[in-house]
């Protein structure tokens, strides 16, 4: 049984560009959450998707947007990239209301 998968594993972009990160949840999980983890810090919640709707949102600007598809997979989009957006982006999936399991993350470097 595959766990949470994310693509790509690494990504390099330049300031001002746009990026799309992808997440496939664990089988049987219908809720997907996205977190940003800066180097040496704990993950910070970006938003959560359930039934293709954004259900909760953390303290992140509108440059961060997302989408959930009917098969429960999800995308995180970041527009107008800043140097400070360099981080490990983590996807976590869960059955609704239950424990979250994290994927390996996508390492984004903005130059």
């Amino acid at each position, binding site marked *: 049984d595959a766990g*949470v998968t994310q693509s790509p594993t690494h990504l390099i972009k330049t300031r001002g560009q746009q990026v799309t990160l992808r997440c496939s949840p664990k089988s049987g999980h219908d*809720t997907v*959450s996205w*977190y940003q983890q800066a180097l*040496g*810090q*704990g*993950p*910070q*919640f970006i938003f*959560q998707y359930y039934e293709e709707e954004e259900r*909760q949102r*953390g303290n992140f600007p509108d440059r961060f947007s997302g989408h959930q598809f009917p098969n429960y997979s999800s995308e995180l989009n970041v527009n107008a990239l800043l140097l400070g957006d360099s981080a490990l982006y*983590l996807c*976590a999936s*869960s*059955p*609704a*209301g*239950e*424990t*979250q*399991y*994290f*994927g*390996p*993350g996508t390492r984004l470097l903005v130059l």
Partner: protein
Amino acid sequence: QQQVKQSPQSLIVQKGGISIINCAYENTAFDYFPWYQQFPGKGPALLIAIRPDVSEKKEGRFTISFNKSAKQFSLHIMDSQPGDSATYFCAASRDAGNMLTFGGGTRLMVKP
């Protein structure tokens, strides 16, 4: 009110010793407290979690102690092994499926 404070930032323990990591929270609405283990280049992996209706939960060498009145909880790793060397994060949320608020992390090194 959403903060979770974790200490120490780093910890060195001899093989076979006990590793203790502490966390404190402010939001009394939190009712789910997981601990995650993260190795370099990997995502966090759930170790053990507790709800405030119990004061202690044990799974193998890992024990969570919970003090609701003090709004504190801690992770004890018994018989620490070099393979336990990793970064540990405490977290809290209103329920298991809601947004997790993480502590700053503790980098544990277990010396052989």
